[in-house]
């Protein structure tokens, strides 16, 4: 069966990328070096872009690469270098009562996995549904979601001005 072969390839790709993403995310929250955490975050964000392509959202994937890997990561590295006297491993990155984080995260994960398993047991994604095109997305943004788009542009303007006001030396 040709169609199922394609799906097997997709599933293998998904599994590899998902494993890389989970390992990268775990390294982001456990590493002792802030710069290493930023670089592992690049791995996770690139993996997310790959998952977007698997989900047939190529415009979102390109946006993810440009905005996150291009802009946000540069911001993070600048933030790290402007606030750090030392580049290297540090001891003092975790909270005093960090031990409580693990049970909370595990409980949350167990709850979510049980709920997802109950809700969508083995529901398949439709393999032959019409794909969402970038044209449709832009029609929505500049159509029914125009007002949120304006609001968002004001949010970005306010954030840019706010960042300048906060960070400049006067």
């Amino acid at each position: 069966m040709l169609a199922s072969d394609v799906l097997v390839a997709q599933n293998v790709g998904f599994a590899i990328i998902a494993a890389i993403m989970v390992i990268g995310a775990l390294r982001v929250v456990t590493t002792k070096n802030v710069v290493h955490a930023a670089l592992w975050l690049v791995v996770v964000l690139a993996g997310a872009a790959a998952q977007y392509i698997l989900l047939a959202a190529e415009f979102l994937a390109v946006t993810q690469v440009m905005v996150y890997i291009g802009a946000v990561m540069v911001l993070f590295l600048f933030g790290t270098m402007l606030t750090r006297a030392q580049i290297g491993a540090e001891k003092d990155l975790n909270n005093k009562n960090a031990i409580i984080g693990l049970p909370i995260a595990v409980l949350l994960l167990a709850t979510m996995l049980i709920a997802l398993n109950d809700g969508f047991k083995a529901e398949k994604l439709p393999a032959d549904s019409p794909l969402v095109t970038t044209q449709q997305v832009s029609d929505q943004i500049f159509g029914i979601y125009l007002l949120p788009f304006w609001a968002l542009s004001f949010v970005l303007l306010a954030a840019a001005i706010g960042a300048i006001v906060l960070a400049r030396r006067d």
Partner: protein
Amino acid sequence: MLLNQFLMLGAVLFCIGVYGVIVRKNAVLVLMSIELILNSVNINLLAFSLRNGSPDGHTFALYVIAVAAAEVGVGLAMVLLMYRNRRSVGLDDLSEMKG
């Protein structure tokens, strides 16, 4: 492909992000954990968008990305200000409100 595999990947990333927000003291690392959470939400939105064949999820994911970029900009400016005023980015040091 199952719908659930994407939702579960999102759930795992979300919980790792929550763990990072709780455990980390360095403000930059907390912001990175928040990025993990926002990305897991985006994966869920796009999975449901493919399932329903509707472009709503794509639109919302784009808005989430834009808001996340704005949040990182302001957040890092605040971290910079905090470092300039007290030479540290530890969130535990911000304890003036403690009685």
